[in-house]
């Protein structure tokens, strides 16, 4: 007779299909629990009519949202299939993030032969970011970063890092850790 059942981890209870649902950009939260009304990219399940309203508005919220979406389109190691244009991602989470950006018209196009990441961004069109270095994701680091030269912003060198909340929190600046943006993520 069976007395005990041990399930090795929660990953076996779930489908391992990651779906992008909600996010915060700056001080604003986005994503509702309602069913999307438009066709979704794979690994995306997102509905929020407020998104475009904020993006097309003016001021800090619009800027923060644009910055966050640009980040999502750049901070990854996706390889675009030359024949099908499909994204090949290291993980379903990464695909969810980059496909979400694409769905919102922040589309990662490809990396050209000179290591320039090319993204198509609303109102700005095609933008080039030269990829200088990738700090790879590992299960112990729980984060990955890209270092890019922003050719659209005077060649400024920028580091974009994404990862597990506790890991990122420990690496924020003293000002960022007590900022209202930090409070908005709680």
């Amino acid at each position, binding site marked *: 007779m*069976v*007395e*005990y*059942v*041990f*399930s*090795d*981890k*929660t*990953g076996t*209870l*779930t*489908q*391992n*299909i*990651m*779906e*992008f*649902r*909600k*996010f*915060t*950009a*700056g001080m604003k939260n986005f*994503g509702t629990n309602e069913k999307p009304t438009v066709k979704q990219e794979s690994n995306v*399940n997102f509905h929020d009519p407020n998104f475009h309203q904020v993006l097309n508005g003016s001021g800090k919220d619009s800027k*923060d949202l644009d*910055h*966050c979406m640009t*980040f*999502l389109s750049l901070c990854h190691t996706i390889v675009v299939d030359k024949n099908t244009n499909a994204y090949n991602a290291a993980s379903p*989470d990464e695909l*969810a*993030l980059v496909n979400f950006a694409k769905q919102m018209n922040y589309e990662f196009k490809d990396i050209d032969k000179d290591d320039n990441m090319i993204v198509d961004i609303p109102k700005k069109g095609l933008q080039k970011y030269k990829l200088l*270095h990738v*700090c*790879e994701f*590992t299960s112990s*680091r729980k*984060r990955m*970063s890209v*270092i890019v030269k922003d050719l659209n912003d005077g060649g400024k060198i920028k*580091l974009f*890092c994404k990862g597990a*909340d*506790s890991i*990122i929190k420990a*690496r*924020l*600046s003293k*000002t*960022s850790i007590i*900022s209202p*943006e*930090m409070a908005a*993520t709680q």
Partner: protein
Amino acid sequence: MEQAKLLTQGRDEAIEKLDETIEHDMTLVGSTAIEDKLQDEVADTIRFMKRTGIKVWVLTGDKIETAINIGFSAGLLDTDMDQHLVDGDDLETLK
């Protein structure tokens, strides 16, 4: 970095150390929520197993909040249960 990349031994460790030196003093841009749905009929199956007297244990590397959330949605936990949370970093605390 170029030197680290050319190492034949301990290359990954050397690169990881260098990466660590630049990923700090960052500014928060935003946060994202990605859902991993339960497999079909997980909750019903687990409730059925519990009714037959099987004891269910779950081992997980997730953080406590995630484990509790999954516990409720998978039918492992319910609000009628006595819940005990034993939390600590070392054996002494847990004793």
